């Protein structure tokens, strides 16, 4: 067992202003009785909307903050009491926080990280060249970190987090703010790490496509409570099988009434249709809609996270 979490809870004291001087203290239950187990080599997505408790949970798992109650075991260690030992076994990459040094070159940043993990000098250089080859970042090593593009920096951040060959990697929003090319590149790297080194990967993301591309299991958290823990296949069948197609015509089209596809919204030159990808082909749908006029723009959108959570709740109500 790589990760074993039992009845994990975290409360924060928050103060509410009642006037210029008066304030009232309240307790915010950020995470409530969360339990799950993760085996070695699994890629698990930990998803939920903003403020759901994802980052708080990940911070407790990595020993950054202490839980109010409950037990955590990561690779046989308790993050609160064995923080230093645990740090050698885990790698972390937080999309919003850089561990590289802004004014240093990538290689110097990585060398410093290596020395933080007490790696001998020769081993550090060997590992850097190994990772640089694996990630195809040899050309970035001598660049100053602040001069990297966001996508390049994220790849280098992941490089930094795996320098000491950890057994588990925690990735908090690894593709935040990236364009599609950089996203695909990061996903390839994550998959490679899992396949070649059997690294356990625990990732949070707002991007449903990240989850679809990478994970074999999904844990959904909302308001600090786990609302779903299932395989990606189950979630795909149940919730991720719908795509919204937004079609913009160059001219206003008349009322489109079609029994073939469901129209969510139609306004002047725009049509929004929802496609069930398990039954219908997106290409066929686009050919069909192009028969109504000249298409000037198309957007295909996955079901938003909030929509998935809403559906999970609806399903539970029905059950």
């Amino acid at each position, binding site marked *: 067992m790589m990760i074993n979490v039992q009845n994990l809870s975290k409360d924060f004291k928050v103060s509410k202003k009642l006037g210029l001087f008066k304030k009232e203290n309240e307790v915010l239950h950020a995470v409530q009785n969360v339990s799950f187990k993760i085996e070695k080599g699994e890629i698990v997505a930990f998803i939920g909307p903003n403020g759901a408790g994802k980052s708080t949970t990940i911070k407790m798992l990595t*020993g950054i903050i202490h839980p109010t109650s409950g037990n955590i075991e990561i690779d046989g260690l308790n993050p609160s009491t064995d923080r230093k030992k645990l*740090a050698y076994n885990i790698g972390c990459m937080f999309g*919003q926080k850089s*561990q590289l040094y802004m004014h240093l070159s990538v290689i110097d940043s990585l060398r*410093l990280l290596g020395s*933080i993990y007490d790696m001998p000098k020769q081993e550090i250089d060997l590992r850097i060249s190994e990772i640089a080859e694996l990630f195809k970042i040899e050309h970035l090593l001598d660049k100053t970190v602040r001069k990297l593009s966001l996508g390049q920096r994220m790849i280098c951040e992941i490089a930094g987090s795996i320098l000491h060959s950890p057994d588990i990697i925690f990735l908090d929003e690894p593709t935040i703010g990236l364009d599609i090319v950089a996203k695909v590149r990061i996903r390839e790297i994550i998959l490679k790490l899992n396949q070649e080194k059997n690294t356990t990967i625990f990732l949070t993301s707002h991007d449903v496509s990240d989850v679809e591309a990478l994970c074999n299991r999904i844990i959904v958290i909302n308001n600090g409570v786990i609302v779903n823990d299932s395989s990606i296949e189950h979630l795909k069948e149940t919730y991720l099988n719908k795509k919204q197609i937004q079609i913009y015509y160059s001219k206003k089209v008349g009322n489109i009434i079609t029994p073939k596809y469901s129209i969510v919204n139609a306004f002047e030159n725009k049509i929004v249709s929802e496609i069930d990808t398990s039954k219908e082909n997106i290409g066929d749908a686009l050919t069909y809609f192009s028969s109504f006029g000249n298409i000037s723009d198309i957007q295909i959108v996955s079901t938003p996270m909030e929509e998935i959570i809403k559906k999970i709740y609806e399903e539970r109500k029905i059950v």
Partner: protein
Amino acid sequence: MLTVVKQNFNFFIQALKVSIMSAMEYKVSFLIQAVFMFINNGFFLVFWSVVFNINDGKLQDLEFDYILLLWSIPVISYGVTYFFFGGVTQLNTYIITGQMDSFMLQPKNPILNVITSKCYFSACGDLIYGLVIGIVASKYNIIKLLIIIISGIFGSVFYVSTEIILRAISVWLKDTENIANKYKDTLLTTFSNYPESIFSKGIKLILYTVVPAGYISFLPIKIFYSLDFRFSFIIIAVGILYLAAAILVFNKAMKCYESGNSISMKM
């Protein structure tokens, strides 16, 4: 134990190299800061020399050498603190903005990791100034010069410890930037630069307890003149107490650390 000390020392050297390399990105700024700090300190000595000249070279029972020591030992302590351990001034910011996360994720002592995370190059000016004045004050006597240098280096224990305490309590008080800065500049540094004899008994009590100026400045000067090394045991014992208190407060603070989600980069 020895391995841990060696690993931490290696890390300290590496972190220092990184800080210097980071600062070297702005070489001109570094030189200007160091030179201006040197000049800034020099002005105080000019003022003192004017006062001594007016009073025929003596002030109460003090000679100008005493003033040189007041502007050498504490200034070395200040320079060592902010040149080698300048990251300590960032502790409250790291806590409030959630930047402590990256230090907590690494297998290093977070205090050492934080305090070595930044280097103030203006402090290099202080350090050089303190050493130059120290050489003059010692009249090239090696023993006396060593007393100045070792006392100056050890004085940084008091600076670092008080900074850690006052900035770590940000966890509970939200922001202690002003409190810590006022304490450091207005109390600790200012009181260390004036002769002990001008203070009343009540103030002296404060200067040997809450504001440890006595251990940064007065006792080392006593050792310098008397060569009575028993005072050094007092300085070391109190220094260890201050450091232990700082570690205790820091560890307590980290247990209550709540992190944050602001976007941040390591400088």
